[in-house]
């Protein structure tokens, strides 16, 4: 009898706490704090970031924003302040990362030295700029010998490494 009483009291308490949980939000819910979420997502690598983008709409929006990709590009280097306007003008950080920084980093992976990080970024930026310039040309009818495939100076980065 006492046990039943205890049990029912327990259940009541439990229900109350569960009820509390249902009515009140938990004390900390990450989606309420977008700024912290951004700080965390900023530090992920490319693959994890893409996985994170499929968690929910908020995460997806954040993962797609260019500022996250800025960190991916300049992870180990502190870029000069004028870089941002240049990169945004040339197509944005995500494009810079996916088109240039990532293939450059992976290609140089084996031969990389720590001191090359800044030069990698500079080279990526140069290649990115040439690519932007070629895209500018594609919109004008400069004419191509082969109809669809635009010569792109980044094509050599897209092809798999042939050792």
């Amino acid at each position, binding site marked *: 009898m006492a046990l039943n009483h205890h049990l029912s009291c327990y259940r009541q308490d439990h229900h109350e706490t569960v009820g509390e949980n249902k009515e009140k939000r938990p004390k900390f819910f990450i989606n309420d704090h977008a700024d912290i979420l951004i700080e965390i997502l900023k530090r992920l690598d490319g693959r994890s970031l893409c996985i994170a983008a499929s968690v929910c709409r908020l995460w997806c929006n954040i993962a797609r924003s260019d500022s996250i990709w800025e960190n991916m590009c300049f992870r180990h280097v502190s870029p*000069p302040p004028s870089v941002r*306007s240049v990169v945004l003008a040339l197509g944005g950080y995500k494009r810079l990362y996916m088109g240039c920084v990532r293939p450059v980093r992976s290609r140089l992976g084996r031969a990389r030295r720590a001191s090359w990080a800044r030069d990698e970024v500079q080279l990526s930026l140069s290649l990115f700029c040439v690519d*932007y*310039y070629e895209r500018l040309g594609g919109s004008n009818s400069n004419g*191509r010998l*082969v109809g669809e495939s635009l*010569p792109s100076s980044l*094509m050599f980065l897209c092809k798999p490494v042939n*050792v």
Partner: protein
Amino acid sequence: MVLYDSTALAGNSSGSSSSSSSKPPPPPLQPQQQQEIDGLLAGAGYKVRSSELRKVAQRLERLETAMVNSPADFSQLASDTIHYNPSDLASWVDSLLSEFAQPPTCPSEFVMDPVTNQTVVNDAWTTTEPNMPQVHQNISYEQQSLNNQLTVVTAMEEDSGIRLVHMLMTCAECIQRGDFPLATSFLEDMQGLLTRVNTVCGIGKVAGHFIDALGRRIFQGIGGGSINGGSAYENEILYHHFYEACPYLKFAHFTANQAILEAFDGHDCVHVVDFNLMHGLQWPALIQALALRPGGPPLLRLTGIGPPSPDGRDSLREIGLRLAELARSVNVRFAFRGVAASRLEDVKPWMLEVNPKESVAVNSIMQLHRLLGSEPNRNSPVETVLSWIRSLNPKIMTVVEQEANHNQPGFLDRFTEALHYYSTMFDSLEACTVQPDKALAEIYIQREITNVVSCEGSARVERHEPLARWRTRLSGAGFRPLHLGSNAYKQASMLLTLFSAEGYSVEENDGCLTLGWHSRPLIAASAWQALSDAPAEFPAPDTHRPS
């Protein structure tokens, strides 16, 4: 020496040549070819024309190799083949050779077809796919002969490759001696040999181009024909694809840009003169680097020199507009001027409108060699151009040239050098997998080959000279070399690592950088500064920056 009746000879040879199927129809018999038959062989019962002795001997060698490589077919030869009269040795050997060289019907898909039309890209492997099921049915029945025939094909291919090279050299030597009939017969032989060699890659492909070029020289003369008449528009397209397919031009652009960037450090008003604008692919990277330099970008003026465009299009202006748009996006003050000139020596310094207060950089990517004539230092255009460059007092002049000696007066030496150089370059191009860049890049290189081999005089513009000679020439014209520095070297090494092939190598050569394939340098980049005439009160600024 016994002389046979010449009419009987003519009757004999025309009869035999119409029946042999492996050779292309021979050129009409010229009077000199109806020579006497070799007397010594005639004594042994064989009729061979003296002029053909060499050819017949080579073919006998080939026959011997083929027989040794496939003893299985030997017995078949003995019983099945219809033989021609063996006393007519030349056609007898030909008929036997055609038995051996018969491409096997089943594995014809395994042997790659020669690519005859260069502008159409045929991937030989993809065309074999639909045929594969048929081949498999026959394999079990003809496995043995198939293997034997493939061995013959492979052995003959390697052999043929070496023979092609020998024949190329011999043909070139004939041309140098002026013996055009013999050169023509070698040309036919080579064209015949080419059908048995894999021309999609390796020595077959390079040889094909050189054979074409020799043919042009023999039959069209040294005036250049239609190759140099390729429109400027076509040239730009080919150049662009050459830029994409291999790293030589990228190396040139990036290295020159690095040197120019370092030279312009601290200057607010800069002017770059580009001797060959093309699509202006070199300049976006420089504009971007200037935009990001500490202290902010300078005012950049670019003067692009290029050939005049026909049909009213102003291609120079279009490129200038594109570059201006890019400069505007990255907030670099930019001004462009186009100078249309079909030859570099037609440009006069006043056309460039150089402001005395600005710092000038002159950029020449594979243009200076076009100014060289055959006579060294005899008022050749290069002297004139170098002197007006000097009068501009440029902060830096970047010079990139092919690292080869293709301006030698003797044809055979030039031919040999070109054969080695372009074989190496084609080797490096094998690594490129991006089509159609690769095919068009090959056409671009082929045009260079044709110019080096088949043109003379003013038509020959590809007068490449090695770095050592440029050094002498530029030093003599009043320039001093600037070291390219470790930043340029680092950047070049990184750029190469990005390319998929592992054969490229960057080397430093006394302040200059060379890019090569497997330790054969193919392109050399150097930087120069004009020596001032007056003794300097202050030492010239050293633009070599320690990293």
